[in-house]
């Protein structure tokens, strides 16, 4: 399983503009595997991303939107793309000029792989 996660991260991390990616245990809010650029606090990103997914999933349910699939957070200096499936959350931290379309495609692939 860990090898599968590592392969997913490897592909995600190779997308231009991606500063790091990780697979997170959604319940614990801690990284399972991570590949982060220096200066990015992986543990903090994992905890916050898992918390954000929990909250957003509740909001999606309340709004009757069904299952939460992905969250895209835009900030001044970069983006955070988060996709979740059951107890696993995939996170990509990107620069502002990253190829977001490509990142989203890779995130979808990660999700598909998690579902199998």
């Amino acid at each position, binding site marked *: 399983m860990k090898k599968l996660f590592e392969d997913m991260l490897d592909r995600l991390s190779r997308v231009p503009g991606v500063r790091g990616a990780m697979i*997170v*245990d959604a*319940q*614990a*809010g*801690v990284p399972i595997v991570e590949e982060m650029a220096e200066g990015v606090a992986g*543990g*903090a990103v*994992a*905890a*916050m991303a*898992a*918390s954000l997914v*929990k909250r957003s999933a509740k909001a999606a349910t309340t709004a009757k939107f069904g299952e939460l699939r992905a969250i895209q957070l835009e900030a001044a200096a970069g983006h955070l793309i988060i996709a979740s499936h059951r107890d696993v959350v995939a996170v990509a931290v990107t620069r502002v000029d990253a190829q977001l379309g490509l990142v989203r495609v890779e995130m979808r692939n990660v999700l598909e792989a998690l579902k199998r």
Partner: protein
Amino acid sequence: MRRADLDQVVAALRQPIETFVGETRVRIALLINRSGQVLGQYGFTRKYEVVNVASLAASASAAATALAELTGSQRWTHLHHGGATRQLFIAPIQTPSEEIILVAIFDDDSSVGLVQLFFDRFGEKLASLEAFRDAAPTSDQSNFEQDLEAGLEHVFLPDQ
């Protein structure tokens, strides 16, 4: 910690505990010293629950310290117990006057990662408090029970 120091310590801890609870969304937070004396709490409604949790957490902390020494792991950073609906996080905080212990209980609204993340900052804040610079260390044997009682008197209002 002696009765005279408690007013100052309990008052100084109130705000940091509330901030920690707000950031981490834990349901219950309890601060005790190594003897099990209660220095601060958030979320408990009954005194006897605090007494039970405080004494069990103090003994769990002592056991963890002994285990860490025994296995050569040296200083332990935290204990985490994941229950079916609630989780428990126990961690020591070193202050200039003595070691204190945080007990946090949380459910699905939080996570061990989130608690861990804010715990580091919480520990730094507590260690820098003026109250811990001046406070006398843990009670001696003759005053032990009296001082344990004093802790409870300070963290609960009289009618609780």
